């Protein structure tokens, strides 16, 4: 059995002391900046609303600035340091060649207002990424404007609204499973709909009979993740789509779990009409500590007319340009979306090609299934169905026996040098831990993860107090989140 701390990649290189803030490095007169001297004749520009003095920013030397941020980096964990089995987030390896591509001057220094005739490369890139995405999802066209998955959901829901609006059939409700991501109900509310919840059946899938009871012609559509948030493929997906289509509703695919079915099955063939995908999950673009992401929205042919504009197009003379779909919902981003993320995603798609993308699905499912098999006798896996690219454990039995909770297992995992799984989601599983190893972890890493989980379960039964003290090898011990919320200190001005 492995020992905690044995390979805790999250331990800072040197010392455990608190890192001061930039404000604490600041001293009047210090500076890092330099700018060329003003080389135009100085004129007396009298403007209103000028400040008497500049804002209260820190004054630091570049040397201290560099040391500070590098020390901060040492106090964080990332995929580049080790396994990150954070369920639903698809924390796979982010290839460096994709970052390289985004930094090409022809992309990096491109202003969004550059006329279309001078941006053929960017337009070609968007069209190429769109074609691959549409082929993978079975859709007709896609917009890259939506800058994240949740923004994609909102965009898709507005497309839904525009569709029913144009057909003079306004709807008020959108159905989501009780296992849905929190962004789904929040997006539904933001789009002006009421969220209606359909329960999950004993197999961990949408309860088809309950759905039939819920659906009438006041329903605009259904939002669904497939594989769902329990990691199971919805067996009745065709029938589910038929129930919605029977009332002229639209079926929305939340692409959070697209990784599991690349090249295996397509949302379009399952009956979905609108598909968002998370380039920062499925297509390996880095998550950046919380963005930037990209949440392109792809639709079937009859919905193309509503997509946000402008969309790129290849014209009959061979040139590339922009056009506005005839019933476009309008802009959802100030410019062309998170273009830098799309560059990385296209580099990834081209590197892998069709066969490599299919291998992603195969090996992400293989890794998850193998890990689940290695854990099944130590942890409860509440639904007895074969998982896809992720699975959900329940620590409820362990809690009954020992008082330890899902959070205790998650915090202990950190001390073995791995990131924790997603905790307490989906909401329908008690003491849930959602585990997604991704396809880029080796067999040895999967076995190492399994050994760490098993070691924790065994320790929990013999000496539970030893589990609840974790993490101890991390830059800080468990943080007091209650105190943080009770007295919010959100800037360095709020202290002292």
């Amino acid at each position, binding site marked *: 059995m492995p020992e905690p701390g044995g390979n805790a990649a999250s331990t800072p290189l040197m010392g455990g002391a608190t890192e001061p803030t930039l404000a604490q490095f600041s001293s009047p007169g210090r500076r890092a900046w330099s700018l060329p001297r003003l080389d135009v004749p100085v004129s007396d520009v009298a403007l209103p609303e000028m400040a008497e003095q500049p*804002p209260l920013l820190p004054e630091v030397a570049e040397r201290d600035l560099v040391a500070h941020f590098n020390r901060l980096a040492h106090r*964080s964990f990332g995929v580049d340091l080790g396994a990150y089995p954070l369920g639903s987030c698809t924390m796979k390896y982010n290839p460096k060649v994709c*970052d390289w591509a985004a930094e090409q001057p022809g992309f990096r220094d491109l202003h969004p207002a550059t006329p279309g005739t001078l941006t053929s490369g960017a337009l070609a890139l968007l069209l190429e990424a769109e074609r691959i995405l549409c082929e993978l999802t079975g859709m007709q066209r896609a917009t890259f404007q939506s*800058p994240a998955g949740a923004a994609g959901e909102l965009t898709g829901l507005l497309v839904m609204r525009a569709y029913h609006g144009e057909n003079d059939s306004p709807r008020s409700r959108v159905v989501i499973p009780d296992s849905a991501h*929190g962004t789904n109900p*929040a997006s539904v509310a933001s789009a002006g709909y009421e969220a209606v919840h359909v329960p999950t059946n004993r197999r961990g899938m949408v309860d088809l009979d309950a759905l039939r009871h819920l659906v009438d012609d006041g329903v605009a559509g259904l939002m669904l993740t497939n594989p769902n948030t329990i990691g199971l493929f919805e067996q009745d997906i065709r029938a589910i789509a038929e129930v919605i289509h029977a009332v002229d509703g639209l079926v929305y695919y939340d692409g959070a779990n697209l990784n599991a079915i690349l090249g295996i099955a397509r949302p379009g063939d399952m009956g979905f009409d609108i598909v968002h995908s998370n380039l920062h999950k499925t297509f390996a673009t880095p998550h950046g500590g919380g963005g930037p992401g990209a949440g392109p929205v792809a639709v079937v042919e009859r919905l193309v007319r509503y997509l946000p504009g402008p969309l790129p197009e290849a014209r009959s003379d061979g040139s590339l340009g922009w056009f506005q779909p005839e019933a476009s919902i309008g802009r*959802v981003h*100030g410019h062309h979306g998170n273009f830098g993320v799309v560059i990385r995603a296209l580099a990834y798609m081209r590197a892998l090609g069709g066969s490599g993308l299919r291998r992603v699905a195969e090996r992400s499912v293989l890794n998850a299934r193998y890990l689940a098999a290695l854990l099944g006798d130590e942890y409860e896996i509440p639904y007895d169905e074969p998982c896809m690219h992720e699975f959900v454990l329940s620590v409820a039995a362990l809690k009954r026996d020992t008082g330890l909770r899902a959070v205790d297992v998650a915090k202990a995992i950190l001390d073995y040098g791995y990131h924790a799984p997603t905790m307490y989601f989906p909401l329908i599983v008690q003491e849930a831990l959602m585990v997604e190893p991704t396809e880029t972890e080796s067999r040895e890493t999967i076995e190492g993860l399994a050994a760490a989980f098993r070691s924790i379960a065994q320790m929990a039964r013999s000496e539970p107090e030893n589990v609840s003290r974790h993490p101890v090898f991390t830059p800080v011990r468990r943080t007091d989140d209650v105190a943080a919320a009770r007295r919010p200190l959100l800037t360095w001005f709020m202290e002292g």
Partner: protein
Amino acid sequence: MDFTPHTAADVEVMLEALGMTDVSELFSHLPAEVILQGALDLPEPLAEAEVMAHMEHLARGNRQGLICFAGGGIYDHYLPPVVRSLAMRPEFVTSYTPYQSEVSQGVLQALFEYQSMVAAITGLPVANASLYDGASAGLEAVNLAAVATGRATIWVSAALPPPTRQVIDTFAQARGIEVVDHPIAAGRTSWDETCAGQPAAVLFAQPNYLGVIEDYEAAVRLAHDRGALAVVQVDPMLLGVLRTPGHAGCDVVFGEGQPLGSPMSFGGPGLGIFAVALDLLRRIPGRLVGRTVDENGATAYTLTLRTREQDIRREKATSNICTNQGLNAVAAAVHLAWLGPWGLAEVGRQSIQKAHYLAKRLAELPGVSIAVEAFAREFPVSLPINPHQAVAAMAERGYLAGIALDAFPQVSNGMLVAVTERRSRKEIDGYVDSLEEVIAGA
């Protein structure tokens, strides 16, 4: 290329443990009617060098090296190498939203420092850890104002940047929000004090889209007289020289933060800056990092006030936002710290001086006039020729001349021109000479 580490032997061992002999068995439980028969129409895999060649080919398809005089929210400011060097550290780049605070202290503290510096430049006490971009941050401000006041109308300056206005328009109808325009006179918003009703927000940009400095007092007084929030979009690169919106009494400040730390990158990823007054703290959308202690009493950072967020509050959340622009916020923190108060002020001063130098020179050209006064670093030029033609002809001479002002017909043949501290006198003089040729040749 293949980023999976499995050997054939690994796959065999793993399948055997599952009682399988072929990977296709992993999917045998899927309904047969949805399983793809045969391969999709997708390209062949490429070697790394081939990927690079292809991406280089696409990048070269864009006109490179244009000297940039376009703005409209995305600006070509000097970006010091230290920003890339630090923000591209893999721990910042390859981590998720910092839910596990104990292994995310670096990201959390960097975002805390970002929040602190945004509070400093906006003059408001609370800033979040970023939104997507300036335009969608404007939409979040409108939502916040509607919920905070229980009202459904917003009053908007006609000189609000069109991207912001368009994104608000996209969502306004779905949320039952009515948008009322207030007109422009001589480049500035002329607030209609006789306008009836009780708006949720009075929304404007400082400077406005035409580059002109608005009268803070007029907008803030109008908002507060009507019980509305004063909401302003700012250009962060001018906050070293302009009075802070917090000082001027604004309740919500948002803006496009791209020039802080991010390259132009065709307009994204940018950075949605967002700050509010203290009484709006619990209504703010997006992530917030707070300072706390760990169980040993050591200083620590954590995501806080999480009950506002979608994964906990679901349909009652203040916003649906999950992933935001964390890495761009970290880059902005590095850049702001590199500039400090005096560097940010110098960027603003030089940009304004150079813009006024260019404007003065352009006004000397036959048929050219500057349509406004009291502008900062961006201004509308009225040309004697079609502005789209001018932009195309200037590109042949090596300049991205500006943005054709289609949305502002009050400026005849209008083109919006922006100047940053990066533009040298030589580039500015060259721009004037080229535009003169273009006009003469038209």
